[in-house]
């Protein structure tokens, strides 16, 4: 067998001309389907609002948007509970919202307001909502991966049955600490799921310019970690993989690894589409990826089976649009942190939560 053989190739999963048709629902209960739909649309509308806020100059800092990738976080979160420990990275609005976190808290945080999830001290790239299970996200690529391993190790020592989740991208697997983390998680049988959102790009660099193979699951295989490579724009497939691996991790079987192949519709950062930078990101390709829309594919399947109607769709859009507008209005009128926050949040203080 050649060292550069066909193993660990994404093949059709990386071909944007594929997987455009409606999802197979595999007997998923209707209420579950409606929850997926609601959560994905909620995330998308929230991120659209952030894109607009950034474009219009209302948001001062960078926003890394995950429109097009909603199915990954929603499918994974379907099998999590509030005592689990989820860590994200720079593109984590979706990971946070998929846990049921407040949209207003997210908006206020991105706007640097005191009412934000991180009290206005983190912005888009340092999100936190531990009561909902979101332990934190940071923009140092792969920075939270070992932290998630440690939160999983804690769950093992605490015998709580909780698990950790590390969301990372295909760029992050190029960082050495990810390999240390996979090895440590395996050797210590740590209950953690590594969720690689492989959107084929690290900033402007296509995976073919960065790695000899396009499937990152090879690193899980090398460390003896159970892995599933799936269409990340298929919420049913994501949820099925998560169900299996989360259950195994909770039962003491140690780490799991999901490689969810997806694509971001916006560029690396902010609201532009980035079809003019780097390699392989043409308008045509982006257009093709938009046809692999995780929401539209779920909707088509639900409409066909009668679980969803056009009226349901309209009601959902109305309801969520209202939530977005109310959350944005409240967030943008909220106060900034007190001047004292400049220095007094450095260390633990008993008088704060």
């Amino acid at each position, binding site marked *: 067998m050649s060292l550069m053989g066909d193993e660990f190739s994404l093949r059709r999963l990386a071909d944007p001309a594929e997987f455009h048709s409606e999802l197979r629902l595999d007997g998923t209960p209707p209420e579950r389907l409606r929850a997926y739909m609601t959560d994905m649309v909620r995330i998308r509308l929230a991120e659209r609002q952030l894109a607009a806020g950034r474009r219009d100059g209302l948001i001062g800092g960078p926003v890394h948007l995950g429109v097009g990738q909603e199915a990954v976080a929603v499918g994974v979160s379907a099998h999590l509970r509030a005592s689990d420990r989820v860590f994200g990275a720079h593109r984590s609005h979706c990971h946070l919202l998929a846990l049921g976190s407040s949209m207003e808290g997210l908006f206020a945080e991105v706007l640097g307001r005191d009412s934000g999830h991180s*009290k206005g001290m*983190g912005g888009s790239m340092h999100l*936190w909502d531990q009561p909902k299970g979101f332990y934190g996200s940071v923009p140092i690529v792969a920075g939270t991966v070992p932290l998630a391993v*440690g939160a999983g190790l*804690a769950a093992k020592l*605490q015998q709580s049955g909780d698990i950790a989740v590390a969301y990372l991208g295909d760029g992050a697997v190029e960082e050495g600490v990810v390999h*240390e983390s996979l090895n440590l998680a395996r050797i210590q049988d740590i209950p953690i799921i590594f969720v690689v959102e492989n959107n084929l790009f690290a900033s402007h660099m296509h995976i073919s310019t960065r790695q000899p193979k396009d499937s990152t699951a090879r690193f899980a295989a090398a460390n003896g970690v159970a892995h599933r490579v799936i269409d990340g724009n298929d919420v049913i497939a994501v949820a099925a993989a998560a169900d299996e691996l989360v259950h195994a991790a909770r039962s003491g079987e140690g780490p799991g690894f999901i490689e969810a192949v997806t694509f971001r519709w916006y560029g690396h950062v902010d609201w532009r589409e980035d079809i003019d930078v780097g390699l392989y990101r043409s308008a045509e390709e982006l257009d093709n990826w938009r046809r692999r829309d995780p929401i539209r594919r779920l909707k088509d399947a639900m409409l066909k089976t009668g679980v969803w109607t056009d009226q349901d769709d309209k009601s959902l859009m109305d309801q969520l649009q209202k939530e977005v507008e109310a959350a944005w209005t409240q967030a943008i009128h909220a106060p900034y942190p007190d001047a004292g926050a400049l220095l007094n949040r450095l*260390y633990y203080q008993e008088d704060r*939560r």
Partner: protein
Amino acid sequence: MMQKLTTYNYSTAILAAFEYLLAKYPDVFVIGQGLWSPWYVGNSMTDLDKKFGKQRVIDTPVAESACTGAAVGASLAGLKPIVVHPRLDFMLYAMDAIVNQAAKWSYMTGGQGHPGLTIRGIINRGGEQGAQHSQALQAWFAHVPGLRVVMPATVADARDLLVSSVLCKDPVIYIDDRWLYDLTDDLPPVVERDLRQERAKCLREGRDLTIVGSSYSTRLALNAAEELERRGISAEVVDLRVLNPLDTEAVVNSVKKTGRLLVVDGGWGPCGVAGEVISSVIEQIQLTDLKVNPRRVTLPFAPAPTARNLEKAYYPDKNSVISAAEALFYL
């Protein structure tokens, strides 16, 4: 009633702190390389794995970065981890976990997330080990807001500052020096103290000169002070103990009394702890409080050599401190 005293040396005092913490606090665990080895970290952790189990005393793959990051994550989940780096040099692999994550977590979560972990880095110099088995990088960690840095110079502090560090809800870098391991003292039982209240301490009173040190440098200062006394110079010795956040009040008070300042540090001079102490003191006194310009004793600005003769020349000793002190009087 007399308190019961137990004899320790610096390294068994560290061991006693580990035993105290692991016995009393079920949420304490230890992770690092060499923890199941009988000799890796001197006798400062002997048999902890046998007493408390390999689940809580975890020897690890060769992965400083992931193990330190894991300890940060475990602390966020409510445990009190202690990471052990048998040589500070190897800890540099973990700088992201320390500087980007642990140090900033409280701040960037608006004071809501708390990585209460202790990272023990051991300075292990000499023995012709050379440039990568010898570094004293306390200044790096003292430079970063959000970390706490402690460097015990005494047997009591070796034990009690480790206990305080682990019970603190902030990330603490605890640095011990193997050249201190044979130091002996009789200690009363552990009293838990809030690390946030720990400050620099005057270990020896004097009239003519203030010598400031930390860790092994404090020992050099104390030894030098004895000899200086014989030569007619009364030196006061202030042990910094906590380098971050650095509180120089004790140093300032001493300098106001003696009018002379000498700072000894086991690291390099440029942008180092000694320079920081001098600047900080100067900012808080009148120049007329000083009888002479302050001085510092630090390493030559080069990596540690291996050859015996060069190594001997490299590390400041008692005589380096005495010479520098005398220069404040006779030059």
